[in-house]
């Protein structure tokens, strides 16, 4: 570990986090064959024994949309990219804090608008090109350049100069500068304390110059700076194979020597292949297999809670949903647990919050209107004169039919709504309706954390005018609290985020439904204790321990 400079009010969470994690690891290593069993976080140091060898792990994956960090917005691709690249920071999923990646240390000014990151000096890409502060400047400028049309561009909007570049008025982000080879400075449009956490996200990975010359051929075999490097090209629809990069300078190299992602179109087939032992591990057990998972796999299966949040949004631009009593009544008339037991085989957790339960800032009983209370709901709905007809919207072909119908049955039964119809649309068409504000009733949508900050659980979806604010919620007090929390000292920020969450749970622009749990099954080759999944639904594939054969 590098030494940390003394800082005034500067942030130094990284130092604390690393020390705690290192202690954990030492303890774990003392247990002999337990290996990195305790390492359910991004920082476990595996020690010398496992760094050599480690075996090959074959893991289920779906076909990525692309393997370009700045363009990858879905799990299948981002999960692979996380092994191929290391950003400025990483996230420790034990403490939910940002810990060093390429950057060893960082600090901000008093109001969280100017940030200085100190970079490690021994980082290179897999092709040997060195990585310094300029690498990041060039990468970020390329990503934001509108000609390159990279989907993760919008994550950069907090950086000064973003608008100018995006609108074609400037070539480079004014807010990102390399003051020397290993010092990177950010200037932000507004205070933003989650910056180090956000920089761990896929869209901020450094990329070598060759990526910009020919992105299409680059993503067939991305050259990154991560724990693993590509072995051969991405075989579309077949597999992606990576070998451990032995010169990775980080604290916690990957455990398996080689990872092979086998690409399946059908999760059922992958499940059978794990059962037959031809595939080592799969992280998304098909819903209809959850009830037999234990019988099929015995000890080789686990459920992991994730941050994948499902909600019923309410179109606040429609008059009949503007009374919050109506929204409360709709929420209280849903027996979430009953739906989970009957339809999901227990693979969801009833949501009583907006901030996902695993985050340190999450509270258990923050919601006054999320518990099932049919009598109170009926009374409230009656008084508020809620609509007697409803149309429920959801996107088709994604397994939402059953539970949406169950919700509608409960609304009919408990609130006396006579007429409920469904509008089930292809996703593209579904989003069109939202953009045109043509949704006339409750609608299903979801949200997964790309980085585990309460800010990301709320700001993009509920702040006035944000692009994912499909409910069209606008609350000045909420907006101010989010801004205040983003500007606050991290120690105080959580309680302000909680106040903001209280407003959401009181105003209820969306009805919290569930947080998803995901089933993971594996073959006998994988040590069960080493199987971990983080809240982004990423299986920590780099920590898997292969049993000696």
């Amino acid at each position, binding site marked *: 570990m590098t030494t940390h400079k003394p800082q005034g009010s500067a942030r130094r969470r990284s130092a604390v986090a690393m020390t705690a994690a290192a202690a954990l690891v030492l303890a774990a290593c003392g247990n002999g064959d337990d290996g990195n069993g305790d390492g359910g976080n991004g920082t476990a140091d595996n020690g010398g024994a496992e760094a050599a060898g480690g075996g090959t792990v074959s893991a289920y994956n779906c076909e990525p949309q692309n393997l370009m960090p700045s363009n990858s917005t879905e799990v299948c691709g981002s999960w692979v990219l996380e092994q191929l690249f290391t950003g400025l920071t990483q996230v420790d999923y034990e403490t939910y804090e940002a810990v060093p990646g390429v950057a060893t240390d960082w600090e901000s000014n008093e109001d969280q608008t100017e940030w200085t990151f100190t970079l490690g000096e021994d980082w290179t890409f897999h092709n040997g090109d060195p990585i310094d502060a300029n690498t990041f400047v060039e990468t970020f400028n390329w990503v934001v350049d509108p000609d390159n049309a990279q989907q993760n*561009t919008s994550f950069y909007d907090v950086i000064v100069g973003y608008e100018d570049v995006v609108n074609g008025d400037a070539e480079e982000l004014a807010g990102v500068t390399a003051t020397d080879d290993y010092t990177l400075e950010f200037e932000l449009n507004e205070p933003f304390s989650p910056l180090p956490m956000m920089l761990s996200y896929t869209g901020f990975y450094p990329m070598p110059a060759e990526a910009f010359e020919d992105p299409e051929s680059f993503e067939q075999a991305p050259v990154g700076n991560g724990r693993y490097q590509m072995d051969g090209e991405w075989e579309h629809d077949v597999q992606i194979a990576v070998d451990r990069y032995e010169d990775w300078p980080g604290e916690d190299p990957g455990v398996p020597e080689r990872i092979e992602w086998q690409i399946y179109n059908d999760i059922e087939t992958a499940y059978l292949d794990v059962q037959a032992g031809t595939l080592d591990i799969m992280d998304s057990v098909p819903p209809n297999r959850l009830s037999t998972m234990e019988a099929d796999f015995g000890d080789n299966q686990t459920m992991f809670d994730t941050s994948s949040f499902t909600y019923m949004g309410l179109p606040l631009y429609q008059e009949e949903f503007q009374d919050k009593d109506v929204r409360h009544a709709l929420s209280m008339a849903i027996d979430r647990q009953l739906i989970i037991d009957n339809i999901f085989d227990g693979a969801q957790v009833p949501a009583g919050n907006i901030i996902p339960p695993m985050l340190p800032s999450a509270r258990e009983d923050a919601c006054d209107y999320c518990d099932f209370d049919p009598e109170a709901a009926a009374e409230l709905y009656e008084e508020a004169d809620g609509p007697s007809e409803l149309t429920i919207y959801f996107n088709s072909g994604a397994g939402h039919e059953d539970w949406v119908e169950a919700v509608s049955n409960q609304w009919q039964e408990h609130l006396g709504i006579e007429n409920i119809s469904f509008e089930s649309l292809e996703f593209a*068409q579904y989003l069109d309706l939202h953009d045109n504000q043509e949704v006339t009733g409750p609608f299903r949508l979801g949200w*997964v954390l790309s980085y585990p900050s309460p800010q990301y659980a709320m700001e993009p979806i509920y702040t006035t005018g944000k692009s994912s604010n499909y409910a069209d919620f606008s609350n000045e007090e909420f907006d101010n609290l989010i801004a205040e929390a983003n500007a606050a000292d991290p120690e105080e920020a959580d309680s302000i985020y909680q106040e903001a969450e209280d407003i959401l749970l009181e105003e209820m622009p969306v009805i919290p439904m569930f947080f998803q749990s995901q089933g993971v099954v594996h073959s006998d080759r994988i040590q069960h204790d080493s199987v971990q999944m983080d809240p982004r639904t990423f299986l920590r594939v780099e920590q898997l321990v292969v049993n000696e054969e």
Partner: protein
Amino acid sequence: MTGYIIRRMLQFIPVVIAATLIVYAMVFLMPGDPIRALSGDRPMSPQVLETLREQYNLNDPFLVQYAKYMWGVFTAGDFGTTFQGRPVLDIIQQGLPITVTLALVALSFQIVIGVIAGVLAAVYKDSFLDRMVQVSLVIVVAVPTLAIGFLLQLTFGLNLEWFPIAGTREGLVSYVLPGITLGAVSTGIVARMLRSELVEALQSDYVRTATAKGMRRSRVVVRHGLRNSLIPVVTFLGADLATMLGGTVVVETIFNLTGLGGQIFRSIQAQENTVVVGIVTLFVLFYVVLNLVVDLLYAAIDPRIRYD
């Protein structure tokens, strides 16, 4: 004969133009913005959306889009790319051998099992064997392809471990289960069709004459009976190969084969116009060529049929 083939080939041109235009129009008419759907719940910035739409000509009116596409195809052999930038030709090159292998395995399964079962049932008409064959064929035709696929996977893949469950890693062996799944229904139809044709043929005068001449029973059945019964079966198999391409959508998905069938399904969902048009055109071409081959085969089987 050559003149006939050339005339038939000339017909391909309007067929291909009509097919591409119709398919392009159908995908174009699907509601919703495919670029918007790319990024899921979290929208991309408007500038990125706009650049991508421009890049894939999505802002142009339909006919302009179509013209640009065809222009690229004919002037540069450019069949376009997916929204992820992967060339369509690449996808076809990767998928075609797999789909063709799958179809051939299924076809040979149909011919071998179907013909044997049909001949046995006809020759031993109304016997226990005949009944057995008939009943099992009815079952095969009645059970949905999906169920047959899963059943084979469970029995021969997972429990007996004779064949791989999925993928193409083990070469031709990997195609056995998917081939049987894909060919199952048609095998039943071939056998039943052949049985009734052959039963009729075996009662005809020329068969009685052949038998009276003292010919061996097996030679009578194969040379006189079977040959005359095959024409409808060949017609069916030809048409069936084309329908089979539809079946590959399901089978390739279940068995995780990366052929064109599964690809076309995913591309339609993602509204990838260029991919859908590329693959469908290929299928259409395949179908018309196959029809021609079937017509030519008639002449080979039945000397009375001639093309001038």
